[in-house]
């Protein structure tokens, strides 16, 4: 064991590997921070270069880009209300209000620290519990998956805002648009209008850009931009204090755990983890009403959730050879090109190599802190750019980003369509978050329901087949019960407090 660790250390210890992890991280943060340039794209672009590198250097470079991009997504989410990566969509909800209050620096710091802590935990669990977690994750078949998603869907109510009806309208719209594309079981078309561009369904990034960034810009255009400098984003609020960090530590740790758990199950990814961590933080908070209006803890929870996934998505990849998301699929490709196949044999045949990669991964948490600090300094200058210049630039980035995902003009049109829809939602006070959650989880919900029923030939008994099923079934019921109780309580409080007010007011 120890000789393998030492061998791994000595394999790792060269300047190229350090450069790879640092350079990859910086590249990832920058790419992640630019809306539409996703980590997937950066990793895919870097992949051919790794063909000519030592396998350790190549893989560490890709891992650095991956982690950097997931963190980097929070920067633009906070500063310009456009999540750089889908996983950062949840960070927008409190990050942008904080920026509007002039506390962008605090929010950026919190996002960085939360990301680093979660990343560290994620790496630890990858290194020490990979085999155990992977075999546990394998027990998630279609019915277990379905009930997990059911539980996750109850968080929609948690982020629905003031009106549950408006939240449900938003979620229904998200579900509707998520059904576009080819049917999974029969291969027939749904809502595609015989347009081949729609056959693959709506792309995630244009929907995201359209939903978050464009409505803000349309709103600015309609109302007219006033003032020279954007007084909204001034950074005089100062950095994060130790007390503020400690206050959110519980949420960060909880988020890291949620991130690890969801990241280890192939096919879920960072966005649902961030939302779940966020809603749990809200539920656990003494001031849940502050969430969505600029609560530091919300940024912390969301970023801990999505970065907690990063190390954990490597668990199914390394232990089983199953990529949990698109980026790890590309990293799998990098392994294959070097004639290495991730999976149980990798640990038997190439243990020093695995340890060398682990050393690099551990180092990446530290590197994230360094590169994050550097780039916050750079990106924070965005806040000094006058709106008249900033907004058009953001608009160009939005269109470019939509196009670049798949090199398709159709995606730009989709972003514009979503932008108009998002603008009306903004004006009518319909929250975006339920739309997004439904759009992400809807297909998982449907696919796993149908898979389960295919397996059981239509019998619902399959949803009680295992301990995991019962566990999530119980959580779902509990979650709904708590929601109902809370809203009843609130209504009662309102009715008792409102009456005298209405007399005096």
């Amino acid at each position: 064991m120890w000789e393998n660790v030492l061998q791994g250390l000595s394999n790792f210890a060269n300047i190229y590997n350090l450069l790879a992890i640092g350079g990859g991280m910086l590249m990832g943060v920058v790419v992640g921070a630019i809306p539409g340039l996703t980590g997937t794209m950066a990793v895919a672009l870097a992949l051919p270069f790794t063909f000519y590198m030592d396998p350790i250097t190549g893989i560490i470079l890709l891992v650095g880009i991956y982690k950097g991009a997931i963190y980097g997504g929070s920067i633009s989410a906070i500063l310009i209300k456009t999540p750089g990566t889908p996983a950062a969509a949840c960070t927008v909800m409190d990050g942008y209000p904080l920026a509007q209050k002039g506390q962008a620096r605090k929010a950026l710091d919190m996002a960085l620290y939360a990301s680093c802590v979660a990343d560290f935990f994620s790496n630890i669990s990858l290194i020490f519990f990979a085999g155990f977690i992977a075999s546990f994750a394998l027990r998630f078949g279609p019915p277990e998956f379905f009930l997990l998603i059911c539980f996750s869907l109850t968080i929609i109510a948690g982020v629905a805002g003031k009106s549950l009806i408006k939240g449900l309208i938003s979620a229904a719209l998200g579900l509707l648009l998520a059904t576009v594309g080819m049917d999974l079981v029969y291969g027939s078309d749904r809502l595609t209008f015989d347009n081949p561009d729609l056959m693959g369904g709506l792309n995630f990034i244009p929907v995201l850009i359209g939903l978050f960034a464009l409505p803000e810009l349309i709103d600015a255009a309609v109302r007219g931009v006033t003032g020279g400098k954007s007084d909204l984003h001034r950074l005089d609020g100062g950095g994060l204090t130790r007390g503020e960090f400690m206050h959110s530590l519980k949420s960060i740790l909880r988020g890291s755990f949620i991130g690890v758990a969801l990241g280890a199950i192939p096919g879920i990814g960072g966005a649902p983890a961030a939302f779940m961590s966020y809603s749990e933080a809200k539920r656990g908070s003494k001031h849940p009403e502050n969430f969505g209006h600029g609560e530091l803890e919300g940024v912390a929870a969301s970023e801990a959730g999505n970065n907690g996934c990063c190390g954990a998505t490597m668990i199914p990849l390394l232990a089983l050879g199953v990529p949990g998301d698109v980026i790890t699929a590309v990293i799998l490709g990098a392994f294959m090109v070097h004639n290495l196949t991730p999976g149980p044999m990798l640990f038997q045949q190439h243990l020093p190599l695995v340890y060398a990669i682990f050393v690099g991964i551990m180092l990446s948490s530290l590197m994230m802190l360094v590169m994050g600090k550097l780039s916050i300094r750079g990106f924070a200058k965005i806040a000094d750019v006058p709106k008249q210049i900033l907004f058009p630039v953001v608009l160009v980035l939005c269109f470019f980003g939509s196009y670049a995902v798949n090199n398709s003009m159709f995606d730009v049109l989709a972003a514009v369509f979503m932008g108009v829809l998002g603008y009306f939602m903004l004006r009518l006070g319909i929250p975006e978050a339920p739309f997004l959650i439904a759009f992400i989880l809807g297909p998982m919900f449907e696919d796993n329901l149908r898979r389960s029923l295919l397996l059981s030939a239509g019998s619902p008994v399959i949803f009680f087949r295992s301990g995991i099923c019962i566990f999530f079934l119980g959580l779902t019921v509990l979650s709904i019960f708590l929601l109902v109780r809370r809203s009843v309580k609130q209504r009662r409080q309102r009715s008792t407090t409102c009456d005298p007010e209405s007399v005096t007011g």
Partner: protein
Amino acid sequence: MKGKRFVVVIFAALAAVALLGGIAFAEYPTKPVTLVAPYGPGGASDLAARSLAAVAPSYVKEPVVVVNRTGAGGVVGSAVVARSKPNGYTLLLSRVGCNGVAPAINMKTPYTWDGFTFLGLLELNPVVYVVQSTSPFKSLKEAVEAIKKSPGKYSYSTSGPTTILNMGFQKLLADADLPSSAVKMVPYKGGGGAKTALLGGHVDFLCINLSTVIDQIQAGKLRALAVTTPERFPMIPEVPTVKEAGFPDLDVIIGWSGLWGPPKLPANVVNVWTEALQQVAKDKTWLKMTKSLGSLPYIKSPEETKAFVKKQFTVYRQLGEKLGLVIK
């Protein structure tokens, strides 16, 4: 008289332009070539595209840029190339799924199997029939017997109805004279999900690209019942071929990648690529990359390629019609 001379001059000028144009065209390529990979990064097709793009510039003298145009199981990317200008600057990394199975099964596919210019076949990806190592089935025959005895009891995972993963298993059932409903099909959104379902014991069978599962086979987690190559595959020498396993017709179930262009590609472009591919076939880097991905290098001329794809198309069309899978 003057007018006539004017007309002559105009014609001469036009002829010169046409000629120059012709010469300019003969110098292909003069700028980077875009290679559309119709599936997402990291998959077999993407890696095939990137391996080709890594070595082809030495032989065509211009960079080859891989662009992923994903969606609808490769149909979106293929459709983009089918509609693009036939100037040789937009080519397609074709795949069995979107260029063989889809046009055979789904009539709504916006192109036909031969609605392209064939430049060459690149590689074959052997397909294996696998079960968990704890499964009681030691051979394909045993599995088929068990299915016959209790239809509807067992299940298999796929990456969707019109994919080689599904057609491969359906062909096995058809060759064993079993109805397509004898085993439950559980579709996933990719080969990775289908593989996880088998590893977790949520389904009983899987028919999939060898490269996806070779590690688990070697580690003894999964048992391969048969491989669809004509001869035993060197990386898994103990696994019988489909012929040895008693189902000789299953050898048509095999993955492939090729290089296609839009229809009516000029002859000089075709020549440039045919010659370049002959060089690629001998390129050590390309051979090494392709083999390390678990594929068989299989570079063929445009004519051989067309014959090969036609045969593939016919197999899937007949199978689709027999099973009632054709989407009108």
